C-alpha cells in the first residue's frame, strides 16, 4: 500500500509539467505570441517579407502548434522599411497584443528602433535580416538574438582571399546609409590588415537606378576590385551598370551581401565566377533541399533565401527553449537559448553566444555561369565551409558590455 502511494506520488510529480493547469501558470496570458515584422512589399520583400512569415508559421507547425500546452500564435506586420511604422507596430504588439518575441527585423533602421522597445519591455528580438553588427556589440542587449549574419562575417570569407591573391587596390560603391557604411568599414579593416589599400568610395543614395556615374568613378580610380557595399535592387542595378560599361572586364566585382533573390536577378554572364560569403544555400545538401522543397510547397517564394531559413531556425530554437525552460518568461528563455546548441537546416555547429550572436558555419560560394546552371534556381556552388569562430568577431573584440562583465 505504501509502495503504491509512492508510485502514485512519483507519477504525479513527473507528469506535472505537462498538464494544462501548469501550462497556464508558466506561459504568460495562456499563449505564446510571435510577431513577424518585415518589409512585406518594398525592396527587401523578396529577401525576407512574406517568405519569412511563412517560414515562421512552418516552424510553429513543425513544432506542433503549441508549447507547454499553450497555443502558439503568429502575427505579422509590414514595416515598409520605415522605423516609425515598425516602432509603432512593436509598441502596439507589446502594449495591446502581449507579443513575446519579434522576428523578421530586416532593415537596420527598423531593427534599431524595434530592439530598443523590446529590450525596454523585456521581450525577445530574433534578428533575421539586419546585417549591422551593432546589435551584438555597441548596442547589444540581453534580449537580442542576432541570427543570420553580420557585416563582419559577410566580408570575412570574401575579402581576405581576394586581397591575398594579389588584388590589392579596392574601390567601394556604398549604399548611403548605416548598413552600407558598416559593410564598407568592416571590409576596409580586413583589406588594410591583409596588405591591400582602399583607393576611394562613392556613396550612392538608396534606391538609385542609374549607377553609371558611380561605376565610371570606380573605373577612373584604377581599382582592381570594385566592392559593392549594398544589397538587393541596388546591387543588381550597380552590377548591371558595371557590365554595361565594360568594367567587369577590367576589374573584379565583389558583392558583399548577395541574397539568392538578388543573385537570381543578376545577369548570369556577368555575375558568373563572383565569390561571396553566404550563411545558407538551399541546394547545399539533402537536409536543405528537403526543407526547401517543403517550404516552397507552402509559400509563394520563387527561391528560398538564407533569411527564410534563418527565420525558421530562430523560431524553432526559441520554441525549443521555451519548452526546456518551462516558461515563456524572456530572461529564462534567453538563458536556455544560449545554452542549447543550434543545429538545424540553417545553422550548423551553431551556438548562441552570451552577447546574442549566433555563431554558425558560413560558406564561401561562387556564382555559377550560364552554362553550369541546370535550373533557374541553380545559382551557387558551395566551395568551402567557413567555421563560425573564424568569421565572426570574437566576444572580446565585439565589446558587448553586459556579456563581458558577466565573465
Amino acid at each position, binding site marked *: 500500500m505504501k509502495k503504491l502511494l509512492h508510485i502514485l506520488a512519483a507519477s504525479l510529480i513527473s507528469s506535472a509539467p505537462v498538464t494544462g493547469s501548469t501550462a497556464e501558470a508558466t506561459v504568460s496570458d495562456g499563449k505564446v505570441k510571435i510577431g513577424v515584422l518585415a518589409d512585406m512589399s518594398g525592396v527587401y520583400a523578396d529577401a525576407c517579407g512574406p517568405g519569412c512569415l511563412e517560414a515562421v508559421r512552418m516552424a510553429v507547425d513543425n513544432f506542433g502548434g503549441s508549447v507547454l500546452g499553450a497555443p502558439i500564435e503568429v502575427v505579422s506586420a509590414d514595416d515598409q522599411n520605415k522605423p516609425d511604422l515598425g516602432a509603432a507596430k512593436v509598441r502596439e504588439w507589446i*502594449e495591446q497584443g502581449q507579443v513575446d518575441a519579434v522576428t523578421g527585423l530586416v532593415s537596420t533602421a527598423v531593427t534599431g528602433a524595434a530592439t530598443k522597445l523590446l529590450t525596454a519591455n523585456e521581450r525577445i528580438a530574433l534578428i533575421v535580416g539586419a546585417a549591422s553588427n551593432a546589435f551584438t556589440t555597441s548596442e547589444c542587449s540581453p534580449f537580442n538574438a542576432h541570427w543570420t549574419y553580420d557585416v563582419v562575417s559577410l566580408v570575412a570569407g570574401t575579402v581576405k582571399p581576394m586581397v591575398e591573391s594579389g588584388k590589392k587596390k579596392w574601390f567601394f560603391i556604398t549604399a548611403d546609409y548605416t548598413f552600407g557604411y558598416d559593410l564598407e568599414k568592416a571590409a576596409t579593416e580586413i583589406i588594410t590588415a591583409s596588405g591591400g589599400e582602399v583607393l576611394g568610395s562613392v556613396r550612392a543614395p538608396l534606391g538609385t537606378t542609374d549607377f553609371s556615374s558611380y561605376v565610371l568613378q570606380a573605373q577612373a580610380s584604377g581599382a582592381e576590385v570594385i566592392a559593392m557595399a549594398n544589397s538587393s535592387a541596388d546591387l543588381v542595378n550597380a552590377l548591371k551598370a558595371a557590365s554595361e560599361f565594360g568594367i567587369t572586364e577590367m576589374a573584379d566585382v565583389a558583392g558583399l551581401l548577395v541574397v539568392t533573390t538578388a543573385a537570381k536577378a543578376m545577369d548570369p554572364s556577368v555575375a558568373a565566377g563572383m565569390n561571396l560569403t553566404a550563411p545558407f544555400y538551399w541546394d547545399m545538401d539533402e537536409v536543405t533541399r528537403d526543407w526547401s522543397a517543403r517550404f516552397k510547397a507552402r509559400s509563394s517564394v520563387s527561391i528560398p533565401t538564407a533569411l527564410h531559413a534563418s527565420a525558421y531556425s530562430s523560431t524553432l530554437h526559441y520554441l525549443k527553449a521555451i519548452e526546456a525552460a518551462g516558461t515563456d518568461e524572456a530572461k529564462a528563455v534567453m538563458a536556455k537559448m544560449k545554452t542549447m546548441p543550434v543545429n538545424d537546416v540553417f545553422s550548423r555547429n551553431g551556438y548562441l553566444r552570451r552577447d546574442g550572436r549566433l555563431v554558425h558555419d558560413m560558406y564561401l560560394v561562387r556564382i555559377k555561369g550560364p552554362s553550369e546552371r541546370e535550373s533557374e534556381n541553380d545559382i551557387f556552388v558551395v566551395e568551402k565551409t567557413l567555421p563560425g569562430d573564424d568569421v565572426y568577431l570574437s566576444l572580446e573584440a565585439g565589446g558587448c558590455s553586459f556579456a563581458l562583465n558577466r565573465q
Partner: protein
Amino acid sequence: MNKRTLYCALVVLALLAPLAVYPVFLMKVLCFGLFACAFNLLLGFGGLLSFGHAAFLGTGAYVTGYAMSTWGLTPEIGLLVGTLASAALGLVYGALAVRREGIYFAMVTLALAQLMFFVYLQAPFTGGEDGLQGIPRGQLLGVVDLQSNMAMYYLVLAIFSGGFLLIHRTIHSPFGQVLKAIRDNEARAISLGYQVDRYKLLVFVISAALAGLAGATKTLVFQLASLNDVHWLMSGEVVLMTLVGGMGTFLGPLVGAGVLVSVEHALSSGTLGAYVHVAMGMIFVLCVLLFRRGIVGEFPHLVSKLAKGIRRRLPMR
C-alpha cells in the same frame, strides 16, 4: 448653439475615448489631425496649396527629438523649441514662396521641402536613415510621468485642442476675414489696399508652427523622428487627409486624419502593406470625382437632401 453642443459632445468623447480605444492610436490620429488642421488653415482658408508641408512636420519632430535626447530638455521646453524652429523655417520658406501663386507656389514649397529632406538625410545629428531613436518622453513640468500612455494622451489632447482653438480664433478674427477675402479675390483685396503678401506670410508661419507642433508631439509619443516625416509622400498624405475630411471646414482635417490613420492601421497587419498605396489612391480618386467637399463638407448637404426627401414623401399635415 447646435455647433456648441456638437463640440461639447466631442470633448466628452475625446476624454473618454482612451478607455475603449488603444491610446497610442488615438494620439496618432490627434497628431496627424493637428498637422492636417494646420495645413487646412493654409489651403482651406488661405487658398494656398503647399506641397511641402512635411518639412515643417519633420523640423518639429527632429528639433524636439534632438533637444530632448541630447540637451535633456523637459517635454514642454522641447515642444516649444521644435515649434519655434518650425516657425522660423516657415518664415524663411514663406518669404520665398508667398510671392508665387497656384501651381508655382506648390512647386516652390515642394522643392524647398526636398532641400530639407536632404538636410535631415545628411546632417550628422539626424541619424540618416535610422532617424533619431529612443527619445525620452520625460516628465511634464517635472511632475507628470509621460511614460504612461494615459498621461501622454491627455497632453496630446490638450495640445490638439490648443492648436484647434488657435486656428478657430485666427479664422474668426479680422485677420481671418481678410485672408478669406484674399482667397476669394486677390485682386480685389489688393485694390482695397491690403498688403496681401504680408497676410499670406503670417498665415504661412502660423501654419508652419502648428505643423511643427504636431511633429514635435508625434516625436514625443513615438519617441522617434524619422525621414518618413520629411518625405514628399507625407506632404501628399496631408493633402489627402484634408481633402477627405473636407477642405475649409474646421473638423474636416481631423476626420480625414482619422480615416487615413485607420486605413493605414487596418492594412499594416500581415502582408497587406502594398495595398496601403492602392487604398490611398482610390480615396484620392473618389474624393476628387465624387466627394469634392469631403466627409464633413458633404455631410450637411446629405442631411438637407435627406430631409428634403423625407419632407416630400410625408404628406403635409
